[in-house]
């Protein structure tokens, strides 16, 4: 059968999602949020999911909808602070002990996800040593400097946003849209890419930024370039 990973809807691409699934969502700094896929996940409605995303509270990312709907048991993030002094929905749930939080330095966050996709279960790294975020982690000196042992993060489902995708699952990104999307796609059992445009023909090899081997479904959702 000729490979064709293009699907008609976000729900078709995501398929069934089990309660307790680990779901990664791309996006950072306003670019690359997989919001149409997140809206679809909200409708699918799995419970007790672990959300792996840069922020639990970014106003532009629909991550906060998943949190507010009570679907999320735990977040693994680099940021979970709402803007202003009022508490965000996430912070209220967290204060009340209704959601678990693991806060990770952003470089260790991205490298742990890359490691998850690259078959590396753990690595030593300098950032975080001597801080509250890495308290209790194994420490070892290399070249006279202490390092902490960080472990890989893997997931069941990655929801990422790209610019163009083809039938083979190849994805390109526009400017800074890539951010965590590449690593997340490699680290999850099932990856869905929402893209502005799905191509009938194969993307030229020099335009491919995420090889199709890492992508299970491509959904064209339009939107401005």
């Amino acid at each position, binding site marked *: 059968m000729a490979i064709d990973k293009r699907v008609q809807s976000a729900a078709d691409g995501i398929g069934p999602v089990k309660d307790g699934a680990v779901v990664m969502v791309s996006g*950072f*700094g*306003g*670019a*690359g949020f997989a919001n149409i896929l997140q809206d679809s996940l909200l409708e699918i409605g799995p419970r007790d999911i672990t959300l792996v995303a840069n922020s*639990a*509270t970014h106003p532009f990312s629909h991550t906060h909808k998943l949190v507010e709907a009570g679907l999320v048991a735990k977040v693994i993030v*680099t*940021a*979970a*602070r*709402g803007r202003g*002094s009022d*508490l*965000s929905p*996430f*912070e209220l749930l*967290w*204060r009340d002990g209704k959601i678990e*939080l693991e*806060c*990770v*330095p*952003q*470089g*260790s966050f*991205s*490298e742990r*996800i*890359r490691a998850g996709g690259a078959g590396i279960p753990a690595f030593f*790294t*300098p*950032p*975080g*040593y*001597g*801080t*509250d*975020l890495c308290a209790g982690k194994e420490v070892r000196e290399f070249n006279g400097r202490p390092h902490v042992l960080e472990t890989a993060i893997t997931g069941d489902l990655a929801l990422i946003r790209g*610019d163009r995708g083809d039938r083979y699952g190849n994805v390109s*990104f*526009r*400017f*800074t*849209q*890539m*951010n*965590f*999307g*590449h*690593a997340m796609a490699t680290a999850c059992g099932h990856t869905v890419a929402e893209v502005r445009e799905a191509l009938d023909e194969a993307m030229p090899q020099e335009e491919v930024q995420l090889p199709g081997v890492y992508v299970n479904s491509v959904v064209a959702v339009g939107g*401005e*370039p």
Partner: protein
Amino acid sequence: MSVLSRNQMAWRAAQDLPDGGVVNLGLGMPVLVSNYMPADRDIFLQSENGILGVGPEAEDGYEDRNLVDAGSRRITLRPGASIVDSASSFAMIRGGHIDVTILGAFEVAVNGDLANWDSRVPDKGPLVGGAMDLAAGAKSTWTLMQYNTRDGAPRLLQTCSLPLTAPGCVKRVYTDIAVVEVRAEGFVATEIIPTISAEDLRARTGASITVADDCRPLAAPTIED
């Protein structure tokens, strides 16, 4: 001359950036440094969302929503710029390929310890982002901050009271009243505004501080706010 304004502090820090260097500017005041880089130096700004070669903010009507920096500013690219994913961006940061990072700070200790990510606001969620990775990974970490808190308490301390970002990383501190180097022997003021005496400076510092033999007046041109 009175204390330096935020823009003047940014101007002062900018004068020390190395020609041909790669520099990462933290959110908040540090990003102002980009407005005052000396015209005769060719400097590449890195942003941890994957940009090497951040240019000026985009003019109205020319923004691209997918071309943003780590602070969500809609920016442009300078000639020679390139873009990578987050894992690669932090490989660049962690691997020692950033010459200087300028970060905001709550507190700096005499041994170079930095506290800049958690001011212990009750119930507010954490926001670490790339601070720990930048502080631990850049070849030089400088901070840009008010010398004292709004209440007049010292920020340059014998030991940080707030949670650490990274131990022993800060090399230099740019403030509204002085430039201070963090040396093996402790804090050394290398520039002080003329209206502040060495005695005043010591009184406003939470640790022992010496004045360099070649200490100069801290000055900056008038900048419209």
